[in-house]
Structures are given as C-alpha cells and as structure tokens.
C-alpha cells in the first residue's frame, strides 16, 4: 500500500510496459495545448496520466485524482527535456512522495530544463542538422537525399534525447538534477557551437553557389563570374551588419523588405 508519507525507495516502483509505451508516445504531443497561462502544465499531466492509473485505487481512486491535479498545474521546460521531468514525476507519484516535495521539484526544474534544452537543441542540434542539409544541397545532392538526411539525422538526436530523458528521470526520481550536470550536457552546447560555426563556413558558400545556379548553365559563365563573388560579398556585409545591429532587428524582416523591393522593381521596369 502506498501512503503519502512513505520513504523513497532505492528500487523504482513497478510500471507496466503498456504504461511506459503510452507515456513515451504521448510525449510527442506534450505541447498540444501550450498556452501562456499554464504553459506546458496540462501536457505534463496528459503524458503522466497512463502511469498514474497504476496508483492504488486505479483511475477512480483519490491518489490518481490528486496526482493528476498536481501534474496539470503550471510547468515550463524545453519540450524534449520535459521528458526528464515526466520520468521523475511519474516515479515520485508512484512512490507516494509528499505533495509539497513534488511541487518544489516542479518549480525547481522549470529553469534548468528550459535553458539546457534551448542551448543544446534550438541553438545547437537544430542548426547543426540544418547546415548538414544545406551542405548536401550545396553539393548537389538530390531533393530526396537532402530531405531524408535532415529528417533521419535530426530525429535520431530528437528521439534519443526524449528516450534518455524519460529513462533518466524514471531511474533517478526527484534526485535527477545531478544527471543534468553530466559533462556531455554541460559541454555539449560548446561542442555543437564549434561544429555549427565550422559547418556554416563550409555549407553557406556552397549553398550560395547552388542558389545562384552555375551548374546546368542556368546562367552564362560571364554572369557567374560576377554574380557569385557579388553575392558572397553582399552576404558577408549583411551578416556583419545584422551582428552589429541590436538583437531585436530580425533578419527575416529585412529579407522580406528586400524581396518586396526586388519584385516591385522587376514588374515596374
């Protein structure tokens, strides 16, 4: 019998394979009802719910209702790293940890799981995979190869991260914070940043060349000799300008304005 004040156990409680699979599958929709009020909260409850059914009394019991209510409250994290919290919270609920302890854990995990995910995934892994795809594009890979290369590479990291997150959370329970200090997670963003910079230098000139369109004689060699260096210099100048401007100046808005002028000039001539 699980009671609210029961001491944590060294061995993880039993959880059926059906519940494990359901929790993992639901994590892909953790942001399904994302909103500015509760943010990821309802999504955490949605993901944990299949496991909570295994609490004493089942889905009609008080333990289930109290746990589900707790897990749907405000929570925010990177969506992939939310898996760490879900694994830990499910274990804590099944171990019958005190409600106050679970609430404190939820509050404490929001910041670290958000910033780590943003640095490792959004500013690291995603641009890395985009640049690999742009490199393949620049090297004249076929459309199918470019798309498959990007999707397989990105999702190998994406799915592995979610699986690692939920299993680490489940294994460590509320002591999972120590796992986030692992050298790979702490140094990973630095390694990825270097790889992204190297790939940017490598892929962007090749991508520019393919967009300008030398191969297949889309343009004459005379035009090519002017167009490619001109594009490269303009790109460098724009990049330097955007870096020097305040961060709130967004390049895509500038691109939209430039393209609008180009289109209007073309049809007005």
């Amino acid at each position, binding site marked *: 019998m699980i009671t609210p004040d029961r001491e944590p156990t060294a061995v993880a409680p039993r959880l059926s394979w059906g519940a494990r699979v359901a929790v993992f599958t639901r994590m892909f929709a953790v*942001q*399904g*009802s*994302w*909103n500015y*009020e*509760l*943010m990821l909260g*309802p999504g955490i*409850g*949605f993901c944990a719910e299949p496991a909570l059914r295994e609490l004493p009394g089942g889905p009609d019991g008080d333990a289930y209702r109290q746990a*589900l*209510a707790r897990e*749907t409250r405000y929570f925010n994290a990177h969506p992939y790293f939310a898996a760490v919290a879900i694994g830990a919270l499910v274990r804590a609920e099944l171990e019958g940890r005190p409600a106050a302890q679970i609430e404190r854990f939820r509050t404490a995990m929001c910041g670290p799981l958000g910033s780590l995910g*943003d640095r490792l995934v959004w500013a690291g892994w995603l*641009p890395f995979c*985009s640049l690999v795809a742009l490199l393949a*594009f620049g090297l004249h890979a076929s*459309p199918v190869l470019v*798309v498959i290369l*990007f*999707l397989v590479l*990105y999702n190998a990291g*994406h799915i592995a991260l979610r699986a690692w997150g939920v299993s680490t959370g489940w294994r460590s329970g509320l002591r999972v914070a120590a796992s986030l200090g692992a050298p790979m997670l702490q140094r990973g963003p*630095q390694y990825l*940043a270097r*790889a*992204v*910079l*190297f790939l*940017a*230098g490598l*892929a*962007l*000139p090749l*991508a*520019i060349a393919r*967009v*300008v369109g030398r191969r297949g004689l889309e*343009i004459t060699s005379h*035009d090519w000799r*002017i*167009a490619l260096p001109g*594009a490269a*210099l*303009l790109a460098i100048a*724009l*990049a330097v*300008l*955007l*870096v020097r401007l305040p961060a709130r100046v967004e*390049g*895509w808005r500038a*691109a*939209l304005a*430039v*393209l609008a002028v180009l*289109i209007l000039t*073309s*049809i007005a001539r």
Partner: protein
Amino acid sequence: MIDAVRLLPLTLLGALLGADVVSFPQAMISRPIVASTLGGAITGNVMAGLLTGAVLEMLAMETLPVGASRYPEWGSASLVGGALAGAYPAMTPGAVIVGVFVGVATAWAGGWSMYALRRLNGVWAERAVPAMEMGSRRAVMTLQLRGLTADLLRGAVLTLIALLVWTPVTDHVLAHWTIGRAASHSVLAAVAAGVAGGAIWRQSHGAAGSKWYLLAGAVLGIILLVLT
C-alpha cells in the same frame, strides 16, 4: 498556377506541417527545407521546391522557437512557398524569388495565428482548471485534444487562404517579371546567407576559438566550390 485538385493535398499537408511546429510531433518535418520540397513535389517541380526551401531554411536559422516568444511559423508557410515556386515550368524567371517572398510573408502571418491559438488555448485551459484540480481525466484529455485539433485547423486554414491569395498575385508578378536570373538569384542568395551567417554568429560566437572554426569551414567550403 495551382489547380483545385492540388489544393486538397496541400491543405491537408499544411495542417500536419503547421501542427509539427509546436504541437505534434516536433519532428521538424515543418522545417523549410523539408516542407518546401514537399510543396514543390506536389505541384510538379521538386527542384524549385528544394531551391526555395534551402533559401527559406537559411532565413529560418535566425528563429529560435523558444517558449513564450512570438516567431514566424515556417511549416505551413514553406509548403505554400515551395508549392507556388514549383507550380510553374522549370526555370521560370522569378518563380523561386516569389516563392521565397510568399513563404516569408506567410510565415509572418502564421506567427500571429500561433499567438492567437495560444491565447485561445489559455481561455480553454482556464475554463478547465476547476475540473483538472478535481483530477478529471476527461478535462485533461479534452483540453489536449482540443488544442491539437485547433492547431491542425489553424495550419489548414492558413495554407488554404495563403494559396488562394498568393496564386493570382504570383501569376501576375511572373507574367511581368523582367530581372535576369543571375542578378535576382544573387540578391536572394546573399540576403539568405547573410541572415543565416549573422544568426549563427550571434548564437554560437561564445565558443572558444569560434572565429577559427568559421574560417576553417569557409576555407574548406571555397576549396570545394572551386573543385566541384
């Protein structure tokens, strides 16, 4: 020109790509290089879709989809841009440029639609809080499924409206296009690579030896460019 037969698959795919951005499954099928290529494949010119997608991908590298920030929705938008670029015979002057323009403009509108959906989700969530505080499974499931369905609808409506609005505009622009490919594609490539380069430097320059990694890559890139 996109015919009515292709509107249905494009709208359905736009729904899936729009949902992939945030709601489900975030597998990045919504990235421009994927979504735009798919759009071009549906309308008959996959290479134009890929070209448009590569340019949009460079522009999208600036966007970090961080939590509560408001950012362009590149999924459905890139599909629309790639589909329009691919709907014209290969090498039609201006098609890729207009496709990219349409993609960026639609992504901007898509960002606003995501913001509106998040507000709507907030209204639904606040209404569901009393039931969720009672531990109601039904309330949690309903909120989640309603949000997912609304996001699918958002993507579908955005895609359909964008296609209906931009198709006649694109026809008109391309019928009167005068600038040569070398000049127009040079500007396009420069703007996209400039935005990508600036964004990558802003995000990654804190790493030790960052400028040397960038320089080493650039040297190798230029050597490959000369050799291939």
